């Protein structure tokens, strides 16, 4: 029996919608079968909480007296540089930005104690942040420098806009070399000392809607503890990777760009993050509801860890050199057991994405929908799927004459 989003929203408004998480749906479908559960359940909520580097915030700082034009000048928040190539007082703060005087990897491995992701956490926590800027001065914007404390509550707009989040599946990172390596997939011990993965698996949003049949542009979501929206497909969106029979990508595939009001978010779900020897980033909490419109969509949401496969990639050579190929594939049930086998060796495995927090997000979103506070949306436009033929292209370098 097919349902429409309109019908589901009607039930949500009346407080009668049946909502379960992407984890709870697994047992439910196994016990009662697809047909019965498709009738019973209206919404499945997902969640993910992991480091997402393509994240950032745009801020409108308001005009000082006399006025200053930051566009074309330089500006810093807590010494972290922000992008000023907009109008007078709009700036963009990226999650991986570092203070100019951060030693980076000069003393290897660098510590990367504070950067963009940490400024975002401080802003959203309501802490005062130091703005320092210089400009060239114009007739209408005469001022050339400013230094002041600012607070999120006093600013005009503070908007989280992340060009690429919630990767649909990811690599399992290992190190085949004989030295420790420091990567965005964490510290990797030599000679297959450990394996790091980064996905909420069966709870992860796009793994529960593998062909993007419900999640699209305009989808209302949980973002950083508040309501946000899918703005576009994310950068590097790559729907055409290999998939299992049930449609689940076996490698990093779809992504989403998301947007939401930072003023309403919480530091619990936007955490400043450091990868030793690599840099800083932001750990973002995202939850996406999936309307159970028909049995097919329900079946997708019942996917479980043992059916989701990821590729094992060597981050000492294959990844940095951009060489194709994988050392094998493992499923998330094996990964979450804490041990996998790579090249005949037993390797301890650990996650960088928090399953406990992903579960909490799915539960919070479930609560919002059950209480009638959160209505579902029809996508304004769907994300490119397999039939789009869209791929993730490498950069073609050409000689500059």
């Amino acid at each position: 029996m097919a349902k429409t989003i309109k019908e589901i929203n009607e039930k949500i408004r009346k407080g009668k919608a049946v909502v379960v998480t992407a984890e709870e749906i697994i047992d439910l479908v196994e016990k009662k079968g697809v047909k019965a559960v498709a009738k019973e359940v209206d919404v499945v909520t997902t969640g993910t909480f992991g480091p997402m580097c393509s994240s950032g915030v745009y801020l409108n700082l308001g005009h000082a007296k006399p006025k200053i034009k930051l566009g074309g000048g330089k500006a810093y928040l807590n010494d972290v540089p922000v992008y000023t190539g907009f109008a007078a007082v709009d700036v963009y703060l990226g999650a991986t930005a570092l203070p100019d005087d951060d030693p980076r990897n000069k003393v290897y491995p660098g510590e990367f104690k504070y950067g963009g992701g940490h400024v975002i956490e401080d802003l959203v926590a309501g802490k005062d942040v130091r703005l320092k800027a210089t400009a060239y001065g114009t007739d209408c914007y005469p001022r050339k420098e400013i230094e002041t404390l600012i607070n999120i509550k006093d600013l005009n707009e503070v908007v989280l806009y992340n060009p690429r989040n919630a990767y649909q599946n990811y690599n399992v990172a290992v190190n085949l070399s004989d030295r420790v390596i420091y990567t965005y997939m964490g510290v990797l011990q030599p000679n297959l000392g450990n394996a790091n993965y980064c996905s909420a698996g069966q709870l992860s949003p796009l793994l529960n809607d593998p062909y993007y049949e419900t999640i699209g542009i305009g989808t209302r979501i949980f973002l950083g503890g508040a309501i946000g929206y899918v703005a576009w497909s994310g950068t590097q969106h790559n729907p055409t990777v290999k998939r299992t029979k049930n449609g689940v990508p076996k490698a990093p595939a779809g992504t989403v760009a998301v947007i939401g009001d930072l003023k309403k978010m919480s530091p619990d779900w936007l955490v400043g993050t450091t990868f030793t020897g690599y840099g800083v980033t932001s750990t973002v909490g995202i939850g996406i509801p999936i309307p159970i419109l028909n049995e097919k969509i329900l079946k997708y949401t019942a996917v479980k860890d043992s059916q989701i496969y990821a590729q094992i990639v060597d981050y000492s050579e294959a990844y940095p050199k951009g060489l194709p190929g994988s050392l094998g594939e493992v499923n998330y049930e094996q990964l979450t057991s804490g041990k996998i086998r790579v090249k005949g060796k037993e390797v301890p495995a650990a996650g960088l994405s928090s399953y406990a927090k992903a579960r909490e997000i799915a539960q919070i979103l479930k609560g919002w929908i059950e209480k009638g506070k959160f209505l579902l949306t029809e996508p304004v436009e769907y994300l490119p799927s397999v039939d789009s033929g869209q791929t993730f292209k490498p950069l073609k370098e050409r000689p500059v004459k």
Partner: protein
Amino acid sequence: MVRKKRVVLTFPHSLVDKPITYHLVKDYGLVFNILKARVTPREEGRLVLEIEGKRENLNKGIKFLKDLGIRIEPLAQDIRWIETRCTHCGACLAICPTQAFTVDQKTREVFFDKGKCIVCELCIKACPYRAMEIKF
């Protein structure tokens, strides 16, 4: 009865160049394993030891160290798991050589067992949220 203790010894500057741990073996019959050592120039020395021996000898050995002016603290005080910063991601799990971190398979939450920690500090670099702190 044989007992085992993990302690952090802080040596004043005047004692840094004296062979002190040697007496623990020779005079008190204690077995020790150096887990970590650090001597900073013109400052104090720090030594993390696991000491094993008969209860009586252990107490005597520790008194000997104290009488010399060495500060002794149990190891656990120096390592802190800041639970509020921990997101339970598990980045520490596979990197810890003594399995001091475990994950509850039901709640999927990470737990730190101070008793198993040998202060190798690998988790400090591995934790993306700076939830492990050491004062050593």
